[in-house]
C-alpha cells in the first residue's frame, strides 16, 4: 500500500470516529467553562455545514466520491479557523480540527484560488506578502542597536511581525536586550509554513520547512525564540511530527520573559494610568500547546496592571477568527468572529485587550472597528517592553 493510500485509510477511520452527536456546534457547559463552541457557526447563517459535524459529513462525501470535488462543495471545509474548540469538547477519540487539516491536504484537486496564490507567494518570496524578503529585517534599523545574523539565541521573527506588525518584533528585541541576552535574527528568514499546513499544502510546507531548517542550522542557534503563536506551533510541533525535523529548543518570548521575570533579570516599571487587561489565548499557543499561564504571569508581573478573565478563557477560549487561513478565504467572517471576541473583552470591563500572536492582534483590530468601541489591542510583548526599556 502506498503512503498516500494508507494515509487515506487512516483518515477515513478518523472521520468515522465522529458519531455526529453535534456537541461541537454551540455547547454551553457551564461546569467546564464552555459558552459556545464553533465561532464559524456563531457568526454565519448557521447551517450544519458551518460546524464540525457537518464538515465531517461533507469531507467523507468528497473523499468517497459521493459529492463532486468542486470549489463550492468544499467551501465549508475552508470556512474554519481550525481553532480546535470542537476538539476540546468532542467526546469521540479523535481530533476533529487536526483531521480537517489533513482533509484539506488530501483535497488537492479541489480548485481553490486563494490557497494556490498564498502557496505561490510563499514559495517564491519566502513570505505570503509578496514583498522582498530582506525587508523582514527592516525594523532593526529603527532600534538603535544592531542584531547579528548568527548566534546561540535566534529570534525567529515570522512574516507577520516582520512585515506587518514590526512593533512586536521591535518590542521582542527590546525585552531580550533589557535582559541582556545577546541574540540573532536571520539574514533571509524563510516563512515557517504554518499557513501552508493549515490551508492544506503539506508538500509546499515540507519545502519551506527544509529552507527554515537549513537557515537555522547555518545560524548556529541553540535556542529559538518566537513571538508568533503560528510559528511556535509549526516549529515546535509540526517540524518534528510531520517532517521529522528536530530543531533546537523553541519557545515563545513570553515563556522566556516569564522565566526572566522570575529570575529577576527583568524588572518592569509601573505602567502609567489604571490598566485593566484581559488576555485572549491564541488557539495555537493555548489549546494546541497548553501555554496558558506564562503570558498571564507576565501581565501580572507588571506593576499597576489588573488582569481580568473573559468568560471563555484558556482551553475554552473562543477564537479571534484569523486562524486556518480564514482571514484569506472569508475575511468578512473572520472579522465578524473577531468583533465577537472584542465584545467578550469589553464585557469584562477591561481597558486593554492583550494577546500573544500577531495574527490575533491584527484580526482583533479589525473586530474592534466593527464593534466601534475604543478597545486598544496590544501584544503582551509590547506591554512588557513599555515597562522594561
Amino acid at each position, binding site marked *: 500500500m502506498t503512503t498516500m493510500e494508507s494515509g487515506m485509510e487512516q483518515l477515513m*477511520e478518523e472521520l*468515522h*470516529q465522529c*458519531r*455526529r*452527536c*453535534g*456537541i461541537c*456546534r*454551540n*455547547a*454551553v*457547559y*457551564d*461546569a467546564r467553562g*464552555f*459558552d459556545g463552541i464553533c465561532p464559524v457557526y456563531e457568526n454565519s*447563517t*448557521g*447551517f*450544519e*455545514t458551518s460546524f464540525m*459535524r*457537518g464538515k465531517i*459529513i*461533507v469531507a467523507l*462525501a468528497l473523499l468517497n466520491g*459521493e*459529492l*463532486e470535488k468542486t470549489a*463550492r*462543495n*468544499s*467551501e*465549508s471545509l475552508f470556512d474554519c479557523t481550525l481553532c480546535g474548540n470542537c476538539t476540546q*469538547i468532542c*467526546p*469521540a*477519540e479523535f481530533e476533529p480540527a487536526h483531521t480537517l487539516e489533513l482533509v484539506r491536504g488530501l483535497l488537492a484537486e479541489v480548485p481553490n484560488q486563494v490557497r494556490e496564490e498564498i502557496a505561490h507567494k510563499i514559495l517564491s518570496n519566502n513570505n505570503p506578502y509578496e514583498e522582498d524578503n530582506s525587508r523582514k529585517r527592516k525594523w532593526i534599523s529603527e532600534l538603535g542597536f544592531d542584531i547579528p545574523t548568527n548566534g546561540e539565541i535566534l529570534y525567529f521573527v515570522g512574516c507577520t511581525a516582520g512585515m506587518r506588525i514590526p512593533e512586536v518584533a521591535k518590542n521582542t528585541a527590546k525585552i531580550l536586550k533589557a535582559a541582556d541576552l545577546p541574540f540573532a535574527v536571520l539574514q533571509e528568514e524563510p516563512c515557517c509554513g504554518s499557513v501552508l499546513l493549515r490551508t492544506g499544502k503539506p508538500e509546499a510546507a515540507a519545502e519551506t520547512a527544509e529552507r527554515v531548517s537549513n537557515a537555522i542550522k547555518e545560524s548556529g542557534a541553540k535556542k529559538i525564540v518566537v513571538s508568533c503563536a503560528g510559528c511556535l506551533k509549526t516549529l515546535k510541533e509540526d517540524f518534528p511530527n510531520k517532517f521529522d525535523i528536530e530543531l533546537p529548543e523553541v519557545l515563545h518570548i513570553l515563556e522566556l520573559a516569564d522565566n526572566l521575570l522570575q529570575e529577576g533579570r527583568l524588572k518592569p516599571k509601573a505602567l502609567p494610568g489604571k490598566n485593566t487587561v484581559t488576555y485572549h489565548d491564541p488557539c495555537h499557543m493555548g489549546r494546541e500547546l497548553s501555554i496558558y499561564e506564562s503570558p498571564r504571569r507576565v501581565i501580572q508581573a507588571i506593576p499597576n496592571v489588573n488582569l481580568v478573565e473573559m468568560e471563555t478563557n484558556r482551553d475554552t477560549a473562543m477564537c479571534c477568527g484569523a486562524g486556518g487561513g480564514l482571514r484569506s478565504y472569508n475575511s468578512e467572517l473572520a472579522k465578524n468572529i473577531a468583533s465577537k471576541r472584542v465584545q467578550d473583552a469589553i464585557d469584562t470591563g477591561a481597558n486593554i485587550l492583550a494577546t500573544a500572536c500577531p495574527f490575533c492582534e491584527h484580526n482583533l483590530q479589525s473586530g474592534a472597528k466593527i464593534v466601534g468601541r475604543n478597545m486598544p489591542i496590544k501584544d503582551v510583548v509590547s506591554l512588557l517592553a513599555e515597562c522594561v526599556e
Partner: protein
Amino acid sequence: MEESTIEKISQIVGPEYVSTREDVLLSYSASASTGYDSVKPSAVVRPGSTEEVSEILKIANDVNLKVTPRCGGSSLQGEVIPVEGALVIELMRLDSFELHEDLRSATVGAGVTFGKLDKLLKVCGLWLPVYPESSLVATVAGNVAVNGAGPGSTAYGCIAEMVLGLEVVLPDGRIIQTGSEANPNAPGPFLRYAFGPDLTGLFIGSLGSLGIITKVSVKLFKRMEEFHYETYGFQESEQAQKFLIELKENNVNAVFASIYEGRILGFFMDMLGEEYHIPEHDWPPFTVSITLGRLREDQLQSDIKRAAEICGGLEGEVIGISELPRGEWDDRMRTFARSSYAHGWHWRILYHHQTPSNWHKSIEAIWDVMDEYALLGHTAGFATGHSSYNFYPHLYYFPEDKEEERRVREAHVDLSKRLFKTGAVPFKLAPYWVNGVDEMKEYMNVLKGIKDVLDPNGIMHPGVMGGL
C-alpha cells in the same frame, strides 16, 4: 422542490436562511443515528420566529410539500432523518428565554439546549432537574418531541412531567398554545391540565408528526446543592431491584439511580473507569450506583442513613466507592456521549421502559439477543420516576462492516419483540417497535385517526411513528 416554492420561503425568512446547496442537504440527511440510512431533503430552512414557521407550513400545505422539524439533530433512532425530498425546518434560531420566577417556571424557544438553560437558571439558584445525557446539544423542545429522560429523572420523572404547556404550529400553520398560557391574561405557565383534555400530552413524544413545537414552558425547581454519592452491592438481582423500590417507598431522594450487573459494569469501567478515577474493586454481582440529592443537609443525612438501613435489610452492603455515581452525576451532560464514543463503534439503541421489579427481564432479553446474534454491546439505564426504569441497550458494529451492521438491524427488531413480551413499553416510538410488534396495531390506528384530522395532507414528518 419547485423554484417558486423556494422563492416564497426565502421571502419569509430571508434568502440567507434557505439552502438547497448539495453539501448543506447532505449534512441534513443524517443525525446522530449512525445506524440509519441517510436521506437527502430538497431544502433546508432556518426560520427566526414562530410566525415564520407558521408561514412556511402554510406554503408547504398549499404545495403538498413534506416537512421535517429538526432541533439539535442529536436523536439516535433515525427520528430526524427526512423523507426523500422533504423540507427540513431547523429551529435552532428560536432561542428565546422567559423566566417566571414567581410561578417557578420558564418558557424557552425551540432552539434552547439544556446546557444553555442550565446556565441561565443557575444564576437564580434554579434548575430544570432532568438532564438528558446529550444536554449540550439536545434542545428542550426536541426532548419533549421524543419523550426523553435523563439524570434527575429518578426523582423527577421523564421530561413530560416537567412540561406546563407548549406553543405549537399545527401542520396547516395555525399557532396554538396549551396549558394555562392558553389564556392570554394568565401571568404565565402555572398549570398544564387546564382547558379540559391534555392537548399538551398529544405533542409530547409525537416526534414532530403532529406539529412543530416552537416554545416549551417548563416547571423549575430550587437547585440542590447537597449531594451524596454511594454504591451498594447485592448478590441477587431481586435484591437490587427491591432496593430501588424501597428507596421510593421510604421517600429517599435518589436523583439518579442505576443498577449495574457484572458484565455491564465491566464494559463501563473499560470505557470510563480511568477518566472518573474509579478505583479497582472486586465488584459484587449487582451494584447500585446512586446520587442522593437534597436541598438541606439534615434531609440528606437522613437519606444516607435510611438508604444504608434498607440496603442492610436486603442483605446488601454499602460499598463506599463514590467515584462512579459522582462521575455520572457531575458529568451528567456528557457521560453517555463520552462512554459511548470512547471506542470506534457505531451503534443502534433500543429505548424502553421496564418496571424496576422486572429489571432482570430486560437484562436477560438483551444478553440473549447479543449472544445469539454474536454482537458486542451493553445496556445502560436508570430509574425514572414513580415505578419505571429506563433502558437503552446499545448494539455495536464497526462502521465499515456491513454484514455486522445487518445483524445489528435484525437483532434490533427481534429484541423489541422480546422486550414487549416481558412487559416493557416503548417511549420513543421508533420504527422497530411499530414494525416489529403486532400488538400495537390498534393503538397505531387511533393515532393515525388523530393525525388525519390535524394533518389531512400528511405533510408533517410522515416517516416517523410508523409512517402515520
